[in-house]
């Protein structure tokens, strides 16, 4: 990776920290500690289930919100503050700017997730008193959540390369919701005929498939996650992220910044 990309990425990370993005951890910590204490008193036999479900869902939602709302502002904010012109007047290419921004936000989300993961495991230890072997699958679920963040960050950047922040947020959030129903979308496509079938199938394959990343429920039930799923999900997340980034670079490359 070029040093320019590393610089942009580290600046993006620092900026996110300065913007108090990591303050969400306080809310998360309160949620998890409250849930751990409360669940132990009101539920019988499903404490672990509730803590894992709630913890991983919170990690996912907090991260998605950050990925969307920080991601959509990464380009537009720089244009608005006119700092983009300073950056691009140096020997920095536009694609390096986009890729650097992506790695900066992805890094922020990875650190954020790692800190939240500590919270989830602490709450789990509080309710279960000790760790069990199947708890290891929670790490896989967290890894899948990070893969989702990579895709969402790339998509938010892609939209922010041409749309206004508000529209970019709407588009990114809509894709997140649709992506979670990707399998059903393919199901609907399979039930249609003719041109509609081709259109629906094409859409279903082009839109991101987030449903395969969601293993929260099965992990909460201590069910293992297959090695092949981990491998293919990783590959899928990487190529889809690269797709969205390439599209973002293409648009940003041709965008008139005057």
């Amino acid at each position: 990776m070029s040093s320019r990309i590393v610089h942009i990425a580290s600046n993006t990370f620092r900026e996110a920290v300065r913007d108090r993005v990591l303050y969400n951890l306080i809310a998360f910590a309160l949620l998890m500690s409250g849930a751990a204490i409360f669940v132990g008193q009101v539920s019988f036999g499903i404490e672990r289930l509730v803590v894992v479900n709630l913890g991983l869902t919170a990690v996912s939602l907090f991260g998605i919100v950050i990925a969307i709302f920080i991601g959509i502002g990464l380009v537009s904010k720089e244009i608005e503050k006119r700092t983009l012109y300073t950056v691009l007047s140096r020997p920095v290419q536009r694609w390096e700017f986009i890729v650097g921004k992506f790695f900066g936000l992805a890094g922020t989300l990875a650190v954020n997730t790692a800190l939240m993961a500590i919270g989830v495991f602490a709450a789990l230890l509080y309710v279960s008193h000790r760790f069990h072997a199947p708890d290891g699958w929670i790490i896989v679920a967290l890894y899948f959540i990070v893969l989702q963040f990579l895709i969402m960050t790339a998509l938010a950047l892609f939209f922010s390369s041409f749309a206004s922040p508000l529209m970019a947020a709407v588009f990114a959030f809509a894709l997140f919701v649709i992506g979670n129903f990707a399998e059903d979308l393919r199901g609907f496509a399979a039930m249609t005929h003719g041109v509609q079938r081709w259109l629906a199938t094409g859409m279903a394959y082009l839109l991101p498939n987030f449903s395969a990343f969601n293993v929260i429920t099965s992990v909460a039930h201590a069910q293992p996650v297959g090695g092949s799923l981990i491998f293919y999900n990783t590959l899928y997340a990487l190529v889809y992220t690269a797709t969205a980034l390439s599209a973002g670079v293409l648009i940003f490359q041709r965008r008139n910044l005057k």
Partner: protein
Amino acid sequence: MPRAQKVTLVASLALVLCLSASVMLLGPVDRARPQATLEEVLYLPSPKVLKHMSLGYEGLLADIYWTRAVQYFGGHLTQDAPTFKLLAPLLNIATQLDPHLVVAYDFGANFLAPPPPNGAGDPQEAIRLTNFGIQNNPSEWRLYYNLGFIYYIDLKDYAAASDAFLRGANIPGAHPFMRVLAARCAEHAGELDTARMLWIATYQSSKNKEIRANAMAHLRALKVDDDIGHLDVLIAQFHNRTGRFPSSFAELQIPGLHGATPVDPIGYPYKLTPDGRVELEHPEDFTFAEKGLPLGYKPSAIAKFLPSDYN
């Protein structure tokens, strides 16, 4: 080549290659997590909880679960020795989310009650689902028809079937068959004819292609049972008259055939065995037939539907 053009070219290539790769990866991803989404249904504490969690979008969620139910059934129908353990919970969730989803009750009545391989083999669950449908849609005569159908075909409870048909017949706009079916069930007469009427009514009144194909396959099988029943009578009469079995159908002098060999509903000639039994040329095409099966024939574990069943 200018640097900007080079970046555009590389980004375009990366876009096309990565997009193609992501589309191709969806297949392996799906195979790596078979049924994962559907099996999550088993973890749901109750459809009522799901309704609260849907934040008011329960109609859309019901449609999604209904689609999942149809796909689940279609996907398992082609498997060897299929079981449909998720069909009831899926339909249960879909109808709890949208109690007016009449098509889901229809589907449940047709495919929850029959024994495998053609259904989940759970008539009590089918009755429970249908009664829930009636409770929420009291003006839908089809639901009473479905209830009577389950009692008649699957449980052989003719009094309950008659009662259900009669209740449905009193609803404005009900199919004229309903009153006739109620009477026939009360008399418990002419079972083959009654069954035929039931399947014809199912075929005519449903728009769901799986339900219609199922009805058509049953009607074909009923025609075979009817044909062979008549042929058996003629063969028995011939045997009584001559003391031997006929060597060909021509010897039977079947009215209207002028010595020709009778054919099954698909057009294949029936076979006459030396010991006076009538057999189907292709029994595998008549999953639901009870007569005409060769000795020692083991029916397939997969219900077979012909392309013509879907017309």
